[in-house]
């Protein structure tokens, strides 16, 4: 079947209706778990770790307010990010340092293991919950508050929290496991994704912007596991898409001054597939390029695609190479909004944003932002020479801030 011409008009993030919708938390179709979490805490079922002050209050899908910690954050890293797109997490840390925010980057942390669970199902409810609670316990013991880098970890932990609140047999089972590990049983008051932290500090970021990004157009891919799993606990803002889609990523990019363009397949996933990206990539490549990148190119022709999850960056970026060989309409760089923001605030594109780990050509995007790409690469090559000769053991924070 050939493509169907749809009457699309190019638009940004303003809804086509003048009507405004104000969500009423009392009418929410899903329950607010937080009171139950505190209640279970009062009953001695677990320790509730409160969000440290000062915090930012953000509106979620059904109008409830969510506390976003600004400081004292414990960074729950993501295996895909740290392994293959390390500029994603490096940029988050760099922004914390730039804002002089205290944070902790732990070694006593495993991944949520949900990539494997959603790929192979070689796990179960109790194991997945125990992994989550072990990590929460570790955060609590450091005195820092979990800030989750990965969209899947965030979504999966929300599922786990829902199950633990509702299933007392599961809760007891997991509590006993934690006791065997010699660990306290702790549930954080809120589960917070890093892109919510970015949203909370967007005005501070904008105040420190170094490059003018107003000439740049971005398309945003909202990560499925961020807002589809336990949907009531994702950030929505009446100013962004009329409050009808999550404001994560888009609100930050707009605050920084870039143009966010809409495209018709925004709700589609990236094609990651968990198992597919590793062993059945024909599906991933096809979906990522035909349903996402090509549609973005056709309808919005963006300079960059921005998202807030490990898997999405990987699928949308890496899938383009093969599609290019077939002369498809692809070829747009993909990164997290943390990398985009860091670069706009003066972070080095290689030392901090680590763009050399990405596949699709990002140089035109950097040039358009006003960055001298060749000089930046030459500076990074100098670093590598020093590392190779032993003059420098590692690239340090002191060298990049």
């Amino acid at each position, binding site marked *: 079947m050939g493509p169907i011409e749809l009457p699309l008009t190019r638009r940004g993030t303003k809804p086509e209706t003048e009507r405004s919708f104000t969500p009423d938390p009392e009418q929410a179709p899903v329950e607010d778990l937080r009171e139950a979490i505190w209640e279970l805490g009062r009953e001695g079922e677990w320790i509730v770790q409160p969000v440290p002050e000062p915090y930012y209050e953000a509106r979620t899908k059904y109008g409830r307010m969510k506390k976003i910690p600004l400081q004292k954050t414990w960074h729950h*890293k993501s*295996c*895909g990010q*740290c*392994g*293959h797109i*390390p500029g994603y*997490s490096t940029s988050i840390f760099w922004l914390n340092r730039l804002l002089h925010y205290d944070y902790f*980057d732990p*070694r*006593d942390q*495993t*991944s949520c*293991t949900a*990539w*494997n*669970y*959603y790929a192979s*199902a*070689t*796990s*179960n*409810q109790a*194991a997945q919950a*125990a*992994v989550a609670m*072990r990590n929460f316990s570790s955060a609590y013991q450091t005195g820092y508050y979990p800030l989750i880098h990965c969209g899947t970890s965030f*979504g999966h932990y929300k599922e786990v929290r829902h*199950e633990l609140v*509702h*299933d007392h047999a599961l809760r007891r089972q997991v509590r006993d*496991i934690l006791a065997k*590990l010699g660990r306290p049983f702790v549930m954080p008051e809120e589960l917070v994704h890093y892109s919510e932290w970015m949203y909370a500090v967007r005005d501070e970021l904008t105040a420190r912007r170094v490059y003018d990004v107003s000439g740049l157009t971005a398309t945003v891919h909202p990560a*499925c*596991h961020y807002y*589809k*799993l336990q*949907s009531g606990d994702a950030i929505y803002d009446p100013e962004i898409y009329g409050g009808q889609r999550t404001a994560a990523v888009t609100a930050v990019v707009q605050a920084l001054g870039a143009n966010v363009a809409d495209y018709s397949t925004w709700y*589609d*996933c990236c094609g*990651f*597939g*968990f*198992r597919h990206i590793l*062993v059945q*990539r024909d*599906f991933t490549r096809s*979906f990522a390029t035909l*349903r996402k990148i090509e549609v973005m190119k056709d309808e919005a022709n963006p300079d960059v695609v921005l998202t807030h999850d490990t898997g999405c960056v990987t699928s949308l970026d*890496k899938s383009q*190479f093969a599609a290019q060989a077939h002369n498809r309409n692809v070829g747009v760089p993909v990164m997290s909004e943390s990398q985009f923001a860091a670069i706009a605030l003066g972070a080095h594109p290689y030392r901090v944003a*680590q763009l050399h*780990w990405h*596949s699709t050509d990002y140089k035109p995007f950097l040039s358009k932002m006003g960055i001298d790409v060749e000089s930046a690469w030459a500076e990074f090559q100098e670093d590598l020479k020093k*590392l190779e000769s032993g003059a420098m*053991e*590692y*690239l340090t*924070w002191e060298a*990049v801030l």
Partner: protein
Amino acid sequence: MPSQLYQEVPLAEKERLFQLVKSDARFDSYLYGCYECGICVAACPSARFYDFSPRKITQTLAREDVELFYEQLNDDVWNCSQCFSCLRCPRQNSPGGLITIMREVAVNNGLKTTQEALAGYTRIIYKIMTTGTQVSPDMLQEDAFPDWGPQVKEVAANLELWRRALPPETLHTTGLSWDVEERTMHELYMIWKLTGVMDMITALDEGLHDIMEEIMEDALEDSGLTID
């Protein structure tokens, strides 16, 4: 139409597996019925590329059609992307969640089609279960990802150097996504053992189980952590 496939498998066995799915603690909150509206199918990436339908999965489970259930358990569930776009369901079903449960049952019962679907994936299971991080930087090799182009080769060639060119102190690793403490890994092994995950691995791939068991036993012996 009743399924004509897998006629050699006794109905009682299909019924047994169906009951395992139905008795999962999550089942009742993942299935409330089905309007047959197809909204889940419209949102489903896998339905676009495979002969696959989340509506059919939900319908089959709601009707308790064990013959069709068994067919889907073998031929459909591994097509799902686990994106959960189907949570758009106006009946509040979670077709993707039902598929997660079906997959768990398929793994636990060592279905041949499951072993085939996960062949080639077992090295990933090994990595995540023994280290706590999945798909480490050194797994990004050209032979594993030829379709990702020459950039993968560049990463592999410069890996050690590029990892040292990362400012966060935890990221100077090549065999792990970040530096995970030994004690942390030992606690993870305890979790797998205490929750029956190691038994699931036996059902999937005995050889893989034995290799991991040996690593975990040796590590736990010196850790001071005990199962009982």
